[in-house]
């Protein structure tokens, strides 16, 4: 596979490519960032990236949104990924909400939302 082939392929699958890119960025933010709120945002970015990927799977060139018009024969996109992602979005929001409430409580207890700082505080205290 030559480099032009690769680029062409990436162009064809550009949604997938960018979704993976965003996934990695979100993953990175989530894993390495010390700020807990940033972690949560990173998590959201990662999740939306997967959702983008998922929705892109269902797309068909020239397809319409799957709101049916009785009697008309249109080409519709695949509705299943959209339906699944609807669930996914709610899940992401739920986790965000819960994570944020945890952060608020953590801030009350530790006075900081920096992961390393918290580790330092814990290390100095519990052991």
């Amino acid at each position: 596979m030559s480099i032009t082939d690769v680029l062409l392929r990436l162009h064809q699958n550009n949604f997938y490519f960018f979704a993976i890119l965003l996934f990695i960025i979100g993953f990175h933010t989530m894993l390495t960032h010390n700020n807990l709120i940033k972690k949560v945002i990173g998590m959201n970015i990662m999740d939306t990236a997967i959702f983008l990927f998922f929705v892109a799977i269902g797309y068909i060139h020239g397809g319409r949104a799957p709101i049916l018009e009785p009697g008309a024969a249109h080409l519709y996109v695949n509705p299943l990924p959209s339906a699944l992602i609807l669930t996914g979005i709610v899940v992401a929001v739920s986790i965000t909400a819960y994570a944020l409430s945890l952060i608020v409580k953590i801030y009350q207890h530790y006075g900081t939302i920096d992961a390393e700082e918290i580790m330092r505080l814990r290390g100095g205290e519990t052991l």
Partner: protein
Amino acid sequence: MEDLILRYVSRIVVPFVQLYGLYVVFHGHLSPGGGFSGGAIIGASMILYALAFNLAAGTKKISHDLSLILESSGGLIYAGVGLLAIFLGANFLGNMVAGFPLGTPGNLFSGGAIMLITLGVGIKVAATMITLFYSLIEEEQATDEHH
């Protein structure tokens, strides 16, 4: 001054937003949207209201107990409709097979159980958003008193 503008604007905007939310909920089976997005819009409007005035005003509109009931009842409606299908002789969450009237496709009242469930979900999501936001904000006041 700013506060006043905000209040006026939100007093005007909030009903429209809520109306739109209701529209999204009730037309879930006909147009884009549904219980989740509609519920979230209604919830967001309530939050906006609470932000523009204050928390007490918001809680006056929807008390804690009410939001608790709404939240649970949303889920219970969902599960209840599912269980109803069992009593009607179908499997859990059956719709057409359970004999729910499907109505005329395209009408507001169509889709059988879909309608009911969407309503339940909408109530639930709206209540959830409100509870969540209140409890996040309320905590602040509690701890402020505490400190």
